[in-house]
């Protein structure tokens, strides 16, 4: 029997954490809420057409990536000062961040394309070709962004 698409609620339960983490690192904790809603509403609209054997996590993170870009563009148009995520989210103000926390803070500070490449590669587990398609660049450029991102991140992870 062919693989079944799980009920949408199960899909939401399984992927909500990774999408939330991605969006917090991409747009900050305040805008993450709106982007989260937009991401899963778009996913729900398209859901019946999704193939059950596709990379479902990669699919939803690609949507989240686009919604994060929309949020960045909207912000640029409004030209409002951007709240510092660390200042807004009190819980992020812990004194000495654990190694993984420091790493994810650094992911959040990467330039857009590098951050998307890193997240789509390691959280979404997408191949370079799909990362390139999601970001809208060549496969070679996606590979380069990923490498540049990793080079920066290496500095915050104790070897």
């Amino acid at each position, binding site marked *: 029997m062919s693989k*079944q698409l799980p009920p949408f*609620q199960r899909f939401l339960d399984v992927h909500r954490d990774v999408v*939330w*983490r991605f969006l917090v690192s991409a747009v900050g*904790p305040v805008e993450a809420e709106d982007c989260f809603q937009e991401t899963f509403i778009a996913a729900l609209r398209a859901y019946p057409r999704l193939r059950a054997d596709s990379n479902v996590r990669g699919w939803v993170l690609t949507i989240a990536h686009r919604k994060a870009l929309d949020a960045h563009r909207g912000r640029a148009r409004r030209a409002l000062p951007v709240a510092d995520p660390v200042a807004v989210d009190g819980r992020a103000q812990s004194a000495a961040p654990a190694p993984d926390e420091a790493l*994810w803070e650094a992911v959040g500070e990467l330039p857009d394309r590098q951050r998307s490449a890193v997240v789509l590669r390691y959280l979404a587990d997408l191949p370079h070709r799909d990362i390139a398609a999601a970001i809208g660049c060549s496969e070679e450029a996606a590979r380069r962004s990923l490498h540049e991102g990793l080079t920066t991140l*290496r500095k915050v992870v104790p070897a």
Partner: protein
Amino acid sequence: MSARTTSENHVVERALRRGAPSTDGHEDRAAEAARRLAQRAVQEGLADVVYAPVSSPFGELLLAATDRGLLRVAFPEEDTDSVLERISRRVSPRIVEAPAGLERVRRELDEYFSGSRRRFDLALDWSLVGGPFGREVLRVTSEIPYGGVLSYREVAMDAGSPRGSRAAGNALGSNPIPIVVPCHRVLHTGGGLGGYGGGLDRKRWLLELEGALTPQL
């Protein structure tokens, strides 16, 4: 790339694959966002099926409904994932958990279990019922009044198949909307209880509640 850089990348890659740590309340906030998403999906008409657990004297029942009506009542022993997967296959995968959409069903069931309601005033969705004869059997069954009973043979006859007692029994045994579609009111011709998808103890309990059966000591 030098060997040293490659091994250092492995460290970063491993850490990235673990995902962000969950010590800062992300998981709670993601769970809240997911609940709001389910509500919004219902408001925007994007959820084809809503479901919710409700408590009952039998334990926690699972209810599911579409905009046509109540689709499914599942007993506590039924596996939630299997129930939802079948709905996903037969009706739509756009299923979300949304208790608000089932508030009226929950209230009518509460009233029924407490003895103050004798008839359900709910629209029903027959999508999970297989075949025209099965639908006819359940339609006939849904008209058996509170406190009354019919035999399998009578139900088969009313559904248009006088010799279809066994087929009627099968249709009743796979009733997707038990309690509300009262398949517990169908008994063997001699008065024997027959079968029940939710177990014979529950069938007896429901018939006693309705006064169709004298409680046994």
